[in-house]
């Protein structure tokens, strides 16, 4: 269902096998069998969840809690006000923001970075890391104080600084930690009183659920405004069908926000993992491996009227897409900074031809350009974030930030490996992981939200 054509291992449709090719393919299969035994890999093939197979290993959604319906249809949802602007150009974080950044930066350095390499291999985030991220309040950053969160005004700027600080530790783990917050933030921004009362207590209580915002779909030139996942009305209910890709921690998530097209317009739907018809498949990818990316397959998934999140004329949806992209830009800043911080001591210590390689202009200029482009990316992202926080239109700014962070962010990831030469290519150094992670910026939709 998730593949339209049989896998030819990414060979295009012009390719075909000749007799020699058939023989080689048979040999290949034989070799794989003995390789499994030789390297004692039989056991790890049971880790099939994270091996891509054609038939796919699918699980039902995570064993769930039940979300008891609460709240009143006529009740007023809690919303945080926009941050008041003061007409002054300023790059100084507020005291609260600075405190938050300091705490999160410590977390990123002490907890995320040391766990990153192994989490990348395991394709999952360690339980202790996720637990400590809950302790510092990540899922409730944008939840109104009235509902048990810590937000008193729109927190897109604070959220940007937080995401940046986390990604400096590790982007994959940052995404794993931030994923549930995407759903709590969505509920805070667009949820009705009923939806907030039903779902938010879980996020502000003691036993927070994993959750995920699912927007991406598996095809080239995916446009989040032209969805193939559909929602059809059936009485008061909605029935959802489609496939979502690159969903962080999909196998753990108990609650999803799913982007689906309703009567010609994209909209957001709350889907509990226990719903019949929800299946989760592994989607291990080039990077962000610690975030346990998955595919979500929806087959005749029925949600009640409580499932429609936000309006049906596309406004909440557009804001969701923009705020998600803003979050990806913020993440790219942290990882790009990690690259810059790593390469500088490396090129100063590495010697060639009797002196540090940093004495060569070609090397030095590459470092300079990382610095210049990173600061440019940062300012463009901050402008979009501060406008979002102030309740100003920010579609243009986030579109520009996205373009810049995708292009320049990847360049930085690429240069990071290049500056370490052969050592940049091996897993002993983290730059190869940052290279893989930074490629995500230009294509991710959903997953995180500010």
């Amino acid at each position, binding site marked *: 269902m998730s593949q339209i054509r049989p896998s030819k291992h990414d060979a295009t449709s012009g390719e075909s096998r000749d007799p020699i090719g058939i023989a080689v393919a048979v040999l290949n299969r034989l070799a794989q069998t003995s390789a499994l035994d030789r390297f004692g890999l039989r056991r790890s093939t049971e880790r099939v969840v994270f091996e891509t197979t054609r038939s796919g290993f699918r699980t039902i959604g995570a064993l769930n809690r039940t979300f008891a319906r609460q709240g009143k249809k006529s009740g007023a949802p809690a919303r945080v006000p926009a941050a008041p*602007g*003061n*007409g*002054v*150009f*300023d*790059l*100084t*974080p*507020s*005291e609260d*923001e*600075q405190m938050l950044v300091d705490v999160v930066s410590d977390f990123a350095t002490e907890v995320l970075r040391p766990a990153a390499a192994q989490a990348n291999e395991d394709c999952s985030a360690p339980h202790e890391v996720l637990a400590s991220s809950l302790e510092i309040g990540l899922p409730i950053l944008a939840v109104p104080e009235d509902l048990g969160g810590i937000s008193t005004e729109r927190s897109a*700027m604070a959220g940007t600084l937080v995401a940046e600080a986390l990604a400096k530790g590790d982007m994959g783990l940052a995404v794993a930690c931030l994923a549930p917050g995407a759903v709590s933030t969505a509920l805070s921004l667009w949820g009705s009183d009923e939806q907030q009362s039903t779902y938010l207590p879980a996020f502000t209580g003691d036993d927070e659920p994993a959750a995920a915002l699912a927007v991406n779909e598996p095809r080239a*030139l*995916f*446009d*989040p*405004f032209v969805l193939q996942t559909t929602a059809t009305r059936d009485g008061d209910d909605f029935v959802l069908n489609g496939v979502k890709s690159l969903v962080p921690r999909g196998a753990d998530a108990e609650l999803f926000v799913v982007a689906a097209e309703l009567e010609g317009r994209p909209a957001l739907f709350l889907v509990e993992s226990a719903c019949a018809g929800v299946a989760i498949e592994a989607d291990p990818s080039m990077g962000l491996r610690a975030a346990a990316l998955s595919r979500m397959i929806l087959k005749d998934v029925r949600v009640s009227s409580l499932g429609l999140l936000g309006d049906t004329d596309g406004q909440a949806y*557009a804001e969701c*897409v*923009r705020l998600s992209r803003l979050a990806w830009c913020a993440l790219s800043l942290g990882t790009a900074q990690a690259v*810059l911080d790593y390469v*500088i001591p490396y*090129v*100063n210590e590495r010697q060639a031809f009797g002196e*540090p390689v*940093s*004495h060569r*202009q070609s090397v*030095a*200029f590459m*470092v*300079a*350009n990382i*610095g*210049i*482009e990173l*600061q*440019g*990316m940062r*300012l*463009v992202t*901050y*402008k979009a*974030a*501060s*406008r979002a926080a*102030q309740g*100003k239109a920010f*579609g*243009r*700014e*986030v*579109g*520009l*930030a996205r*373009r*810049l962070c995708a*292009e320049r962010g990847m360049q930085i990831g690429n240069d990071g490996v290049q500056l370490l030469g052969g050592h940049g290519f091996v897993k002993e150094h983290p730059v190869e992981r940052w290279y893989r992670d930074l490629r995500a910026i230009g294509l991710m939709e959903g997953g995180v939200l500010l």
Partner: protein
Amino acid sequence: MISLETPKKFRPLIGQAHQVALNLLRPNSRKYDLLEHEYPKELDMLAAMIDGLSESGASNGAGASGVRRSEDEPADDGKTQNEKTQNEKTQNGTNLASVLSIMEMCWGDVGLLLSMPRQGLGNSAIASVADAEQQERFAGLWAGMAITEPGTGSDSANIATTAVLDGDDYVLNGEKIFVTAGDRCDAVVVWATLDKSLGRAAIKSFVVPKGTAGMNVERLEHKLGIRSSDTATIRFEGCRVPKENLLGSSEVDVKQGFAGAMATFDNTRPLVAAMAVGCARASLELTKELLEQAGVDVDYDRPAYNQTAAAATFLQMEADWEAAYLLTLQAAWMADNRKPNSLEASMAKAKAGRVGSDVTLRCVELAGSIGYSEHELLEKWARDSKILDIFEGTQQIQQLIVARRLLGKTSAELK
């Protein structure tokens, strides 16, 4: 709080500058591009208006002389926002006002801005380095800046023009090239060395009024762009200037190097970055309109790859432009808030310089034959922008400065 919006209090200033650019500079752009060295007399009226504005304070101190920093310059004192008193809260001052108004003027015409009376680089030098008495004495003068020599460009410490003390005067000998406004200005700020054997520490700047014997404007250059700006070669032969015209201190402080003179550049780099940002914006705005007329709309929400190649290219250009714009504002903001901004000034100039060229050239291509024709100004902006990545420190020098700072290298280590 973090906010990168244009300061509210500068909106009138920017509005005025925009009106000037629209109604005085643009209508005269093509004329003086073609007439080259003919004096743009329309600017005299404008200069008078700007002087009036400066005096009344309505211009918020914007302009070439707006780049001065306060004498007593503490480093960032480490207080949190909340600990600062009302007076210590974030400043949006003359540096920011200057870059914003220069952006508008260069949206109009870069060459004509460089030809504005009393807005010369020499004025910035005087604002940065002169002592209080000199500030007063030289007020009202239009000052050009003479640094480059036939054999010395980027390595300004290598200049060979000499200044020898003789009685109450210094005697200047040497040849300066590429002096912007060198013909039209009232005075030239000349970099000369008191003693070449002492290296850069002995380099000082001198205000030499026009008409001083021994100073001769030899010729004006014919250029690729900014043709309305007069670029002069000036020869000094036994040229005597009173010793009070040496800007700042005459002490040869070997430890200080020529930090004093270079301080000018920390202040003027953001201004040049602003020129590039303004010029590129002109290209982007016109090109967007031309694309719309050709049926191409740029959408900020849809993925770039799902739009036409022209729209995707435009998005990329506008994104890089936005980065250059904000880097420029940051450098100016830091100067206003008395934070050392050498690194950020170079980042701004490097990014804006290359974005200026890339954007203006690409816009010509996107606009096709009308981009190339003299019927529109697009081709002129692509010629004007090139110098902005070269003068006041080339792209490569800016990258060198940024690299040395990031890597912690001296000029001896990283060449």
